[in-house]
């Protein structure tokens, strides 16, 4: 390699005389050394040299060479077991980490034929639905789209370039399954779903000071997910929680309500009734707190003898929690305590007995109140609880619930196609959330494209013949921006600096962008504030600017061997897809007309600002 121009010995060039100074020569040598070191480090860090084998990632336990080579991901012959037990190079199930083991209840859930049967049933049900609605389904999405979808749903951000490159080494038919199994075993899945489920259970507020420890509760939910604990057991733990909020984190489900309610210093039984109904039964019965239903919004009773909800239904549900008393240093304990309420148009308050709002024969009257409620909620024949879980998980995966709003599932229907089949499978296989995720993501309906070669309309989307285009949460947008600017996967095994940077940047961005709170699945449009933040804000600017140490766009500008490769790499890193012909032509022209680094930065900025980055599709 020729020396840089200032260092060449050329006749009487005055620059040579400058280098005669030992100090300056030493300085120059060190500068050169450092420049080379930075370049080499950047090149290695950029990961642009080779497709990656991800040797240190958790998924490396399922090394590519050991992957079963199926010709297609559907029917999901390998979907159920994934890459867990069938891989020769994996440790025996007993030696797997807790998060990868399955309980005896859940082992039955790993029966491949039952898994396949469920998926095929669902596919058939949706096919009938499309025929009945007279809509043609969109073609299957390509693997890029499907894997991005999975990544957004399971870990909250798009794929890293490292992950895309790895998946490119896997046979195309296996990519979606391999991607899903990697993500399900990734600690980021536990972190992300822990936060999302926490919002379902206790809301997005910080709650009352001292008696509510949000972080403890999130950690508890994450532990349950890591251990793959059955969902019904989680519900029972929360409903019957006792003790102190620090020692028994599930107690926070109750104590988060201690800043409201009629009785100071005690849990708010009406808020708990509302939360229980919405989070676990997927039903909005809040209006019954003040009056009987007169709009036909809340239907209870049995399927053959349905009736409108009453104030009694709500307050009898609330009465289950009246025994949960805050008792100083012991925290929450069960104590005899009657719930009294003055109904509308009545002259005085009456004692309200605890009673479930429907399917009363499934409640065991011999159990104490909170245990009775918990057992009734998770009774295998109480389909409503399983439906609520299915609708929630579907919404987290797809971005839109099967029936909208997510917590307003009509008790006696009509229900969307597939809901009861999924609910029954969920209960039959031990309320196993991972199995539910695998089943949903293996179905044909999950794999539809969000575009079609024929004219599509809202009817297609409503019939699930077209994958819905849904907005991402602010932290997903931030996660996408930050991840797109790095070649390597930003996971929990990354550097402390990287973690801290991601946390700080993400929090700051979400604060400005606007947290969605619990309104997670609304299809609201983007706002001016959000657009300004993306157009001119610090996060996008810093992650698309020149930074030879950290930023992928600079690495691409430095190391991509051709303009075409640079454009394609940028698209893969940011949008997880290759560019279209028109896009390629446009940006090739930009690269020819402007300095390379500037043109790549511009390209990055454009992609980070696209609606495609901020919306799931």
């Amino acid at each position: 390699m020729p020396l840089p121009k200032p260092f060449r010995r050329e006749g009487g060039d005055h620059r040579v005389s400058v280098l005669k100074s030992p100090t300056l020569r030493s300085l120059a040598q060190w500068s050169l050394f450092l420049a080379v070191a930075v370049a080499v480090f950047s090149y290695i860090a950029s990961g642009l040299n080779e497709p990656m084998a991800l040797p240190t990632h958790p998924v490396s336990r399922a090394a590519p060479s050991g992957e079963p080579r199926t010709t297609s991901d559907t029917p999901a012959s390998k979907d159920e077991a994934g890459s867990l037990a069938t891989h020769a190079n994996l440790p025996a199930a007993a030696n797997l980490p807790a998060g990868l083991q399955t309980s005896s209840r859940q082992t039955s859930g790993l029966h491949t034929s039952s898994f396949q049967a469920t998926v095929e049933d669902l596919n058939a049900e949706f096919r009938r639905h499309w025929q009945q609605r007279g809509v043609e389904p969109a073609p299957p999405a390509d693997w890029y789209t499907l894997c991005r979808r999975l990544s957004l749903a399971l870990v909250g951000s798009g794929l890293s370039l490292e992950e895309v490159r790895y998946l490119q080494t896997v046979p195309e038919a296996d990519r979606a399954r391999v991607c899903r199994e990697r993500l399900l075993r990734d600690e980021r899945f536990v972190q992300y779903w822990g936060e999302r489920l926490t919002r379902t259970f206790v809301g997005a507020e910080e709650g009352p000071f001292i008696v509510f420890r949000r972080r403890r509760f999130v950690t508890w939910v994450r532990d349950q997910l890591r251990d793959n604990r059955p969902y019904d057991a989680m519900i029972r733990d929360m409903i019957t929680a006792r003790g102190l909020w620090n020692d028994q984190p599930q107690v926070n489900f109750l104590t988060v309500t201690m800043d409201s309610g009629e009785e100071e210093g005690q849990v708010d039984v009406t808020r708990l009734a509302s939360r229980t109904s919405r989070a676990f039964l997927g039903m909005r019965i809040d209006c019954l707190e003040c009056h009987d239903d007169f709009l036909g919004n809340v239907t209870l009773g049995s399927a053959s003898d349905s009736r409108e909800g009453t104030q009694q239904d709500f307050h009898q549900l609330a009465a289950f929690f009246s025994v949960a008393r805050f008792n100083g240093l012991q925290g929450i304990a069960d104590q005899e305590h009657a719930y009294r309420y003055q109904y509308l148009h009545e002259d005085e308050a009456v004692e309200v007995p605890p009673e479930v709002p429907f399917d009363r024969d499934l409640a065991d009257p011999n159990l104490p109140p909170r245990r009775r409620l918990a057992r009734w909620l998770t009774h295998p024949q109480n389909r409503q609880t399983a439906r609520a879980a299915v609708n929630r998980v579907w919404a987290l995966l797809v971005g839109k619930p099967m029936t909208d709003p997510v917590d307003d599932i009509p008790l006696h229907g009509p229900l969307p196609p597939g809901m009861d089949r999924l609910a029954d499978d969920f209960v039959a296989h031990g309320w196993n959330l991972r199995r539910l995720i695998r089943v949903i993501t293996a179905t044909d309906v999950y794999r539809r494209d969000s575009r079609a070669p024929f004219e599509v309309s809202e009817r297609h989307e409503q019939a699930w013949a077209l994958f819905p285009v849904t907005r991402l949460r602010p932290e997903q947008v931030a996660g996408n921006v930050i991840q797109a600017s790095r070649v390597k996967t930003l996971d929990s095994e990354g550097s402390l600096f990287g973690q801290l940077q991601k946390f700080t940047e993400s929090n700051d961005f979400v604060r400005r962008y606007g947290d969605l709170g619990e309104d997670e699945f609304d299809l609201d449009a983007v706002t001016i504030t959000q657009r300004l933040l993306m157009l001119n804000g610090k996060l996008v600017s810093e992650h698309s600017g020149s930074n030879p140490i950290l930023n992928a766009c600079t690495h691409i500008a430095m190391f991509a061997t051709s303009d075409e490769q640079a454009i394609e790499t940028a698209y893969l890193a940011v949008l997880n897809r290759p560019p279209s012909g028109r896009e390629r032509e446009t940006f090739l022209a930009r690269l020819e007309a402007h300095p390379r680094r500037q043109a790549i930065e511009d390209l990055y900025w454009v992609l980070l600002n696209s609606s495609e980055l901020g919306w799931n599709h």
Partner: protein
Amino acid sequence: MNKPAICNRSHHFSRRSLLKSAGGGLFLSPLATHLARAAETDAGGGRPKSVILLWMAGAPSQLETFDPHPGSRIGGDTTAIKTTSGSLQISSLLPQVAEQMHRAALVRSVTGKEGDHKRAVYNIKTGYRPNPSIVHPSIGSVLCHQDESGADIPRHVSILPDQSPSRGGYLGPTYDAFKVYDPASPVPDVRRRTSPERFHRRVDDLLDVVEGEFSRGRLPDLQRRRTLHTTATRAALTMMDSDQLAAFDVSQEPQQIQQAFGDTPFGRGCLAAARLIEVGVRCVEVTLGGWDSHVNNHELQSSACETLDPALAALLQTLKDRELLEDTLVVCGGEFGRTPNINPLGGRDHWPHGFSTLLAGCGIRAGAVHGATSPEPDLKSDDPVAKNVESPVTVADLHATILNAVGVEHDKVLDTPIGRPMHLSEGTPIKSILS
């Protein structure tokens, strides 16, 4: 989903009032003069009503602000002073405001049912108690929703927002307040970070090429009815290039005016609020914290009053001078009041059972006072409102009054996104303070 509304023109900027002001308007600001010409092309008609909400975060003490009881056992160290409104007296901690009270009305008997900050903030800002099934819109969001005409800049602005800026609720985040901080600093994210030429090249590639590719084969009205990405981007670009952005820049005001508001972020916020109303913004919320005085009540309330006093007084005077007060409602209050009793730490705790709110302008009867609290309250009563408050009104009543004053039917019913009919307010206007 509600119809998305991103404003782009100042249709409601009254040509008549502007030109009238320009003709004899000694006090017409240079900004308004500059914008008057643009407004000439707009349709005539009355100037739409606007709201400035001075949000006292943390809950001010009624006894140290607008409802003092000096000499009583609950009065503490605060004395009262005469005002320009007849026999009305307010706290001596607000001497400049006292000189403006002939322009304002007081409601001294507001009662709520929320004693927790977060829940009470929601209650006061929306008129409804928190309900897990729905998020209600704030006053500014309702106002913007009811009249879609707009300005180049967002019509709902929150200056110095705390943890709970006003939200669009079920009307959608399009109606959320646009958040800005101390007007001494530029508005965030409105300055492009590259040269104009490079920036526009980027935007062209974004909107023409990448967005075009995203829409290919997808729902034909995806952008128009769902993402609004292009529309919002263009609105953001319009805002970035708008002269109206100058309304945020209070340094353009004469030194004398700036000094009158006080050299504080809140004072600058109030001045910016007046300037924003001038260019067509419909609701500006300016937040002042420091009122949560569980210890050393008198010191903390005095300190906060020092900031509030010049700013509120100058705001009323400036709005009057610029002929904006007739169409601008000023509301000053917090989430609840503070306990009549002083606790062992010299503080006052949370008290939703009778507290004060100031209202001025926009059809509010100047000098009116509604309700009263007892100087010798029975604090052990099971029903402190019935025992200690004369002519009590609810938070919902306060909301109905505000909506009424700004020309919005308070009992109008809107459908929420799930089709649930919902009144804008479930209260009754306080007639005694409406002219």
